[in-house]
């Protein structure tokens, strides 16, 4: 059977592989290569060893500040998004009338794209700060918390939906017997419900974590290049590629390579943690 199938490989695989190799695989290896070159265009480059990395991470580099901002942003947003999402999910699984309506409503912001969202909140936050006699670009802190607000507004509903699905699967017998044993509501949630939804918590934590690290569109639209202090890693890399004096995009490419390694490490950790859990279960 397998031998017979194999003859059909070109028909089943070739169309996808051509697109994949052209759009991803070749550009990926070129990207790795260009990190080590002085790179102006795809035809104009010269090998220059590790000097891009020296420029990208050495003195005067904006990378470390952007990395610090990103880590701070990720910590705050992961916690806030998950706490709000879980709280809403708990309220919406009490069996109240209208729960389905609220669930649909809270999920909706996810469908609006990052650029549009960033500009909507840019207008609102600017309007609000204007009435206080200042604006969004006045202090880096405004842009930072603005970005936290935007991502919470967008992602809480998404994570909430995942938490609701997990909460629905917690057997009623478990919570009931905890109640009979005299646990109050909070104790039941803390000691019975939460341990039962650990897989969902892991999924949501990693989703918000990688979303936070890769965040670009919202950052670009909300404060963009107006407040360089507010640039997270993805935007910093982008700015380095297109706005450097020497016109050498290799420096940005070198940052992108390190950025890729960070994101890959997070994904690797996620796979490792979920595998480990599978073995235990």
């Amino acid at each position, binding site marked *: 059977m397998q031998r017979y199938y194999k003859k*059909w490989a070109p028909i089943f695989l070739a169309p996808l592989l051509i697109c994949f190799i052209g759009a991803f695989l070749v550009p990926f290896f070129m990207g790795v290569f260009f990190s080590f070159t002085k790179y102006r265009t795809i035809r104009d480059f010269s090998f220059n060893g590790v000097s891009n990395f020296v420029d990208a991470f050495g003195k005067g580099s904006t990378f470390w500040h952007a990395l610090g901002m990103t880590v701070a942003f990720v910590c705050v947003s992961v916690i806030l998004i998950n706490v709000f999402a879980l709280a809403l999910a708990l309220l919406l699984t009490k069996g109240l009338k209208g729960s389905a309506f609220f669930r649909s409503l*809270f999920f909706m912001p996810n*469908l609006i794209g990052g650029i549009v969202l960033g500009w909507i909140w840019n207008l*609102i936050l600017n309007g609000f700060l*204007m009435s206080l006699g200042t604006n969004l670009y006045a202090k880096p802190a405004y842009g930072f918390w603005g970005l936290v607000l935007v991502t919470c507004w967008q992602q809480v509903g998404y994570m909430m939906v*995942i938490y609701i699905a997990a909460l629905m699967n917690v057997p009623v017998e478990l919570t009931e017997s905890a109640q009979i044993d005299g646990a109050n509501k909070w104790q039941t949630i803390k000691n019975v419900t939460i341990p039962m939804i650990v897989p969902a918590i892991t*999924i949501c934590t990693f989703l918000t974590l990688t979303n936070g690290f*890769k965040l670009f569109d919202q950052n670009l639209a909300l404060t963009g290049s107006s407040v360089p202090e507010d640039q997270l890693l993805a935007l910093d890399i*982008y700015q380095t590629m297109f706005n450097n004096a020497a016109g050498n995009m290799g420096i940005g490419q070198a940052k992108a390579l390190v950025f890729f390694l960070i994101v*890959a490490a997070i994904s690797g950790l996620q796979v490792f943690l979920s595998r480990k859990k599978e073995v235990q279960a």
Partner: protein
Amino acid sequence: MAEEKKQEKQQNAPVAENAAAVTLQKGGKDRSIKNSKIVGNVFTYIVLVLAAGLVFFPLLVVFMNSFKAKLYISTSPFTFPTAETFVGFTNYVTGIKQSDFFSSLLNSLLITVCSTMLILILCSMAAWFLTRVQTWWTKVIYYVIIFSMIVPFQMVMLPLAGVAGILKLKNVWGIILIYVGFGAGLSTFMYSGFVKGVPVDIEESAMIDGCNPLQTFFHVVFPVMKPTTITIAILNVMWIWNDYLLPYQVLGTTKGKTTLPVAIQIAMQGGYGDVNMGGFMAMIVLTIIPVIVFYLFGQKYIIKGVISGAVKG
């Protein structure tokens, strides 16, 4: 549903009993249980309504401002349009004209629909083949495709734009092929997760009946995959419709030759003449409307899709 209600009664019981002990002299035990439950529910509803207000507020602000004259958008963004500030549909007319809105909308629709359909067909075929034929090279291909999921776009952005230029793919049809290449990771991964659970018996009997693998796939396997196909379609539509950097790099910023998110970003940066705030608000409203319509019709599938997508991804 009945079970949920029962569960909730049970959860509320101890709290209610505490309250009952305090208020025993005042009313009956039954009534105070009922009261504390009502108080809890009222509190829940207050929180939910406040949260709903937070979701609605930004959309309402944009909608209101799309009917206001430019000056009033920046001076008083949070008020309803009044006789003085109201400009009717002027903003819609100027916004559409200034950014060639409908060309961008058409591009966005065409790219999203065609890319998603191609991704569904090509990835399901590849995933089925890679799962059924287990040799060293199918494993290598599978893992290389999966690997693309963890690579951030910034890593491939510049070389991709270069390659696309050389291959003459910097147009609406070219970007569709690029999306197929980028969408391959997640979609192949999710399809192959599903194929692993499909028994080979039906496929084998189709073969014995004289179907070749291509016929077997489209007559037997693809219809069985329908739930996964819906999920993957939704995840891809959400991604491609809202994507910014890829069309920005590949299609450029020429008016009418790009997608909606790019058009909005460029309009806001003053790339299409002066920044027309009113026209911009109108464009945002027009951009959000198709999304909301899509959501109203497909929300059941969308939410389901997100859940299964998250659990597998």
